């Protein structure tokens, strides 16, 4: 199974980083949502919606998966902000953590210490994966709690569906997991000293812009499916908004493929420190 010694030590190692990310994300959500009551003041929204209706801004809003009418609902406002920033932040957190949790042992040459202990390669990957998943889930519990809290604090007269909030949150978690699995596998392919961080950031930003392009350019719609972002359903206000099998399967399937590839690769990898 997993090695408890590695798990505990690594959990402690990333504790401060997790706390930092949690605080940032929480502040981000609360600050962002604090704009909602301001926006809903009568004349304010009229001014803004006129501004949002101009073709350029309309495109911009489409790009971020939002529309002016979505913003009148508190969950609509939350989810478009969420789509824009929290999902991006969470994806960065996920890919960066997964990209270093295993590869760092080689980069910092501690792999020689770790792998001469009585542990199998697979135990090492499993333990590291467990630490990564624990961190990812904890961060997402923070996102969930603070998100829900912010909706309650700032909703005013607006009503929202808890189910829709939960589903949107869950899609975002699956997205982050997928990027993590990609990062974990890529970190094993990269030669020591190469910048995994810039590659990780490049992947997220690239995928994000592919998604945006496909939203503003109808002809590029299919092209958008190259990006995991495209598989998120952001239509939280639709009555039929639900967890859809093929979307969930896409995220879980892709994650599983990269995790299995990681196990296969690490089992046979020569550790050259």
């Amino acid at each position: 199974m997993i090695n408890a010694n590695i798990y505990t030590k690594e959990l402690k190692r990333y504790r401060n980083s997790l706390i930092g990310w949690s605080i940032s994300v929480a502040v981000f959500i609360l600050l962002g949502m604090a704009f909602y009551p301001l926006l809903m003041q009568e004349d304010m929204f009229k001014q803004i919606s006129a501004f949002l209706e101009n073709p350029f801004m309309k495109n911009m809003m489409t790009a971020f998966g939002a529309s002016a009418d979505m913003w009148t609902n508190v969950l609509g406002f939350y989810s478009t902000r969420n789509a824009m920033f929290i999902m991006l932040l969470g994806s960065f957190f996920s890919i960066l953590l997964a990209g270093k949790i295993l590869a760092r042992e080689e980069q910092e040459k501690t792999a020689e210490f770790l792998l001469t202990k009585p542990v199998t390669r697979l135990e090492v990957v499993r333990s590291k994966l467990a630490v990564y998943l624990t961190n990812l889930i904890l961060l997402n519990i923070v996102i969930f709690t603070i998100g829900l809290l912010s909706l309650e604090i700032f909703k005013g007269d607006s009503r929202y569906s808890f189910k829709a909030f939960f589903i949107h949150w869950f899609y975002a978690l699956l997205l982050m997991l997928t990027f993590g699995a990609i990062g974990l596998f890529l970190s094993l392919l990269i030669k020591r000293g190469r910048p995994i961080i810039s590659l990780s950031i490049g992947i997220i930003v690239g995928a994000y812009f592919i998604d945006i392009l496909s939203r503003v350019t109808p002809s590029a719609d299919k092209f958008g499916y190259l990006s995991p972002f495209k598989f998120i359903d952001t239509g939280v206000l639709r009555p039929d908004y639900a967890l859809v099998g093929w979307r969930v399967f896409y995220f879980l399937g892709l994650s599983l493929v990269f995790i299995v590839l990681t196990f296969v690769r690490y089992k046979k990898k020569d550790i050259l420190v």
Partner: protein
Amino acid sequence: MMGKMYLIETQNLTKYYGKARGIINIDLQIEPGEIFGFIGPNGAGKSTTIRTLLGLIFPTSGRGRIFGLDIVKDSKEIKKQIGFMPSEVHYYEKMDVHELLSYSANFYETDCESRIVELAGTFDLDLDRKIIDLSRGNQKKVSILQSLIHQPPLLILDEPTSGLDPLMQAKFFDILKEENSKGTTIFFSSHTLSEVQKMCRRVGIIKDGKIIAVEDIETLRKKQLRKIQIEFNHPAEPDEIDCPGIIDPNPEKNNLFFLFSGTINDLLHALDGKDIEDLIIEEPTLEEIFMHYYSEENDKR
């Protein structure tokens, strides 16, 4: 097939890094309880051999057994009983020494706490210091403790003395001898012959990825190899004397230095009639014997 039970045994163990040579057909037999020296210059394949034994890298061909267990399939079982000191120390920099040693100890079933404190005392190591703040020598001490605390029956040491001051080196050798007297087998890799000479009964010499000799230290020394210095009354030439057994003649002003594997009688006959000021015959150091092995290998090519 199984004649004698060796603690470490490899057959045709070979490792290529892509096309680059690592080690070629390494055959080793190390007996339980011995201190085995593994000698060769940097890049000869010492670390590659050790890394293959420890499962850090996988052999291209051939096989190896430690405690009768397969080095690839049973690596975890094997590592339960090994203490390893790498040639270069790299630890988790943010940990303090005690955390690092406890982390290391927790991988084994033995309780190591008292041993940590005892050995830290012996080596005068401060357990509360952060790894990153330690000097190279102190990091090396952590590495020594880390390899010893779980009291493994086999120690694999890859150039363990580099970076240790002579005093600590002496303490370290004392502890190794003590462990060995309790039955611990030690595989000691080094490029310094003098320390191997102090510690080991047998020595394997590796060069360009191949084992070129495995000998008892005593046999090595008794190989009748002599170190000869002749001082002439005129500038010396390399081919000044003609006698079978002269190795690497090296003239320096009036002196001629060489290793000599022939008989003293032949040499004296060859010197007959020469104008000689002085003649010195010494027992060569292992270093010189070692160089001789190398040149012999070169001559065969």
